[in-house]
């Protein structure tokens, strides 16, 4: 099927389009300084993406340490104390260092281009948001070298494990998370201001591409819940250092309070990591099916519904903690309700494909895999939502399988789809399709080998975050470890493909993909440093 891709659009268009005119302004700083001092949304977007990729590999290595230890039962490679640090750091790095910055990087690059804005609304603030991240994550990673080791209580850092029984480095962990949180809040404020205030004249809210819509709603979620995270880690800091009793029953507090606060942040956080993915997939599928997105308005409303519901479901993470029955029922039903707007989205994507003129470029392959594999994660989520059943699954590998299905072939596949989709716009070259297909198939097989067996080991009762396990889980774990290595190694193909695309390749015209209609395809490829200095003429397309 691969060789049947249609001819790429011809190059002629690239110079005749609006918005270009890359006139250099003043003398710009060179070398490292250029990147440190930049206020340009494209450069900052690139910085975010490179940072995220670096963190993806660091977090990936931590995951491979975990999988290597779990290759066989018994303790082989690492001590349990270090194993715990690896699971914790893997989660923290992937969530806060890889997935979230990747989406912010894509937003930086694409939101101004998609709404016809000259840059982000507050360009200096934008650069501040980025540069907080390397500082925060250097501090976070340095905790691994501190006396007593780094965070070892899981990425959810439940009290009292993270307060009374935590290593001394926990205070540094809290402070680094504060910095990452400030970065997220400021970044989100910037994105909202850009979307609400800098759209091209004539572009109404309901004319915006879905990636912009999903990011608008994501940014709202970020501003709403990152302060809750800041609050809860501040209370941890005080419990640890100043003797307060927030999470200590001896003083009248409650460790369960920690879980409520954490998951009031944590559940919207889950959607923060998936809504922009919905936006990317909603851009790619119509492009390569050569049909407008089916049900544009319902996509917008479904995204908003998911965001609102995300505030009402947090305690489904806490079914076994001893909630009153009425709470268990309430959170069970609200959680299951989320399947409705999510289903709307999946059906809309499928309906978009129906009778489309489909081609399977790498971006499309990743987007289609997203639809299928994310749905698997969605279904296992529905299983976990059933409170009485969750008593069996809770804290087992079934949960690990569930959230990795929504995060790896969900969020991360969507990020990769987005990268393959927009690389021609960023670099002016098409990515290598052959390399892309290798990357895609290796990743799909690797991901399923890794995470599908975890459903079974989890249902059979294997607990998560344990360095050793009973013999009956040995086969499943061995398969998972082999799959993880395969997935990890195949990401090197991704890096190779990106570098190759930056350095050269088939030249891409302004409108790199035949079916792509949004504003970013009206500027030349590669997009000049400054685009839309004067707002473009926007002609609404009918959805």
């Amino acid at each position, binding site marked *: 099927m691969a060789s049947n891709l249609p001819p790429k659009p011809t190059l002629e268009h690239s110079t005749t389009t609006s918005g270009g005119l890359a006139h250099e302004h003043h003398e710009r700083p060179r070398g490292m300084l250029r990147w440190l001092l*930049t206020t340009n949304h494209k450069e900052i977007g690139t910085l975010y993406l490179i940072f995220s990729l670096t963190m993806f590999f660091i977090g990936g290595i931590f995951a491979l340490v975990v999988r290597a230890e779990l290759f066989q039962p018994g303790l082989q490679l690492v001590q349990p104390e270090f194993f715990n640090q690896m699971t914790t750091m893997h989660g923290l790095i992937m969530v806060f260092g890889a997935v979230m910055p990747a989406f912010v990087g894509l937003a930086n690059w694409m939101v101004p281009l998609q709404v016809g*804005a000259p840059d982000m609304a507050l360009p200096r603030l934008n*650069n501040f948001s980025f540069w*907080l991240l390397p500082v925060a994550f250097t501090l976070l990673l340095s905790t691994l070298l501190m006396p007593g080791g780094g965070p070892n209580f899981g990425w959810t850092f439940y009290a009292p494990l993270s307060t009374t029984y935590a290593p001394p480095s926990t205070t*540094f962990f809290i402070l680094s998370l504060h910095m990452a949180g400030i970065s997220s809040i400021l970044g989100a404020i910037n994105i909202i201001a850009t979307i609400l205030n*800098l759209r091209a004249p004539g572009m109404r809210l309901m004319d915006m591409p879905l990636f912009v819509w999903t990011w608008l709603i994501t940014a709202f979620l970020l*501003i709403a819940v990152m302060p*809750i995270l800041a609050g809860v880690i501040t*209370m941890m800091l005080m419990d640890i250092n100043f003797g*307060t009793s927030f999470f200590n029953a001896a003083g009248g507090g409650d460790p369960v309070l920690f879980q409520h606060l954490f998951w009031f942040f944590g559940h919207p956080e889950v959607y923060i990591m998936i809504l922009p993915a919905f936006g990317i997939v909603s851009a790619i599928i119509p492009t390569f099916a050569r049909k407008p997105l089916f049900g544009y308005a319902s996509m917008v409303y479904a995204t908003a519904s998911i965001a609102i519901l995300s505030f009402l479901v947090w305690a489904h993470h806490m079914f076994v903690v001893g909630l009153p029955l009425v709470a268990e029922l309430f959170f069970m039903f609200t959680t299951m309700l989320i399947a409705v707007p999510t289903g709307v989205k999946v059906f809309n994507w499928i309906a978009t494909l129906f009778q489309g003129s489909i081609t399977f470029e790498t971006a499309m392959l990743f987007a289609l895999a997203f639809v299928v594999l994310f749905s698997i994660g969605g279904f296992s989520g529905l299983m976990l939502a059933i409170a009485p059943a969750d008593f069996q699954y809770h804290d087992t590998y079934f949960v690990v399988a569930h959230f990795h299905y929504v995060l790896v072939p969900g969020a991360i596949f969507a990020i990769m789809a987005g990268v393959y989709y927009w690389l021609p716009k960023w670099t002016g070259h098409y990515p290598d399709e052959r390399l892309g297909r290798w990357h895609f198939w290796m990743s799909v097989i690797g991901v399923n080998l890794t995470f599908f067996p975890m459903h079974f080991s989890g249902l059979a009762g294997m607990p998560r975050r344990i360095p050793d396990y009973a013999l009956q889980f040995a086969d499943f774990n061995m398969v998972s470890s082999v799959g993880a290595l395969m997935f990890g190694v195949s990401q090197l193909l991704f890096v190779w493909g990106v570098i190759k695309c930056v350095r050269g390749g088939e030249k891409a015209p302004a409108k790199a993909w035949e079916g792509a209609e949004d504003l970013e395809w009206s500027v030349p490829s590669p997009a000049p440093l400054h685009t839309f200095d004067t707002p473009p003429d926007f002609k609404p397309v009918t959805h």
Partner: protein
Amino acid sequence: MSGGSYYVPESSKWPALGSLAVGTMMVGLGALLVHGRGALVMTLGLVAVLSVMYLWFRDVVHESRRGLYDAQMDRSFRWGMGWFIFSEVMFFAAFFGSLFYVRTFAVPWLDGEGAKGVAALLWPDFTASWPLLNPPSADISGPHEAVSPWQLPLVNTLFLVSSSITLTISHEALKEGYRLTARNWLIGTLVLGISFLVVQGFEYYEAYAHYGLTLQAGIYGSTFFLLTGFHGLHVTIGAITLAVMLGRIIKGHFTRDDHFAFEAAAWYWHFVDVVWIGLFLFVYVF
């Protein structure tokens, strides 16, 4: 909607230096808390943060006065400040939520209420009450008495509520072009704000010296100082912001139609005031 003259700054040192300064401050704070030394690094970081903020805002003020900002830029600032205040609202929401949770669930459950009732097994002699003067464990000594709302807190409520009114008068005066009046009412606002902080400081002294109400005195002390402490910090920030606005009025900045910095500071001040009303009701009165 874009007008075509949106100002995009070329490049700036302040963001990168700012993040380095924040990082230095955090490392110093962490070292101070964990190892007991690092105060110098932290102070250095804090001074650096404040310097960067000063220089960064100075750039913005200069750009604004050179007329580089159009109406669209003004809207970006408005959206930015509005959403920033929303994030602050959510920050306090976490603390108020904790207070409600503790009062409604955690403390009564320790006394055996609720469907499960098992938490009461931990300390069978514990009786729930609020304000909690008798923490469950004997290792934690509770306060002798709670803070009465009808003394210093009431005075502080009057201070803050009237400071919101004086600030509004100052703003209206600025809009009408009565700069001297605006300046005087702003000075009055600042005096009220600083008086609030002084009274709050005195209340803290009373709490520690006479009530036995400390951070370590169980959940009542924890929530009390968490909420009032972060509120006091925000009053301090708001007062500094208003002081900057006072300086700018005296220097002749702002016009009748164009003074968003003043408005933003006023929004922030009103937000701090509203939080105090919530605090007065739920930390002190009820």
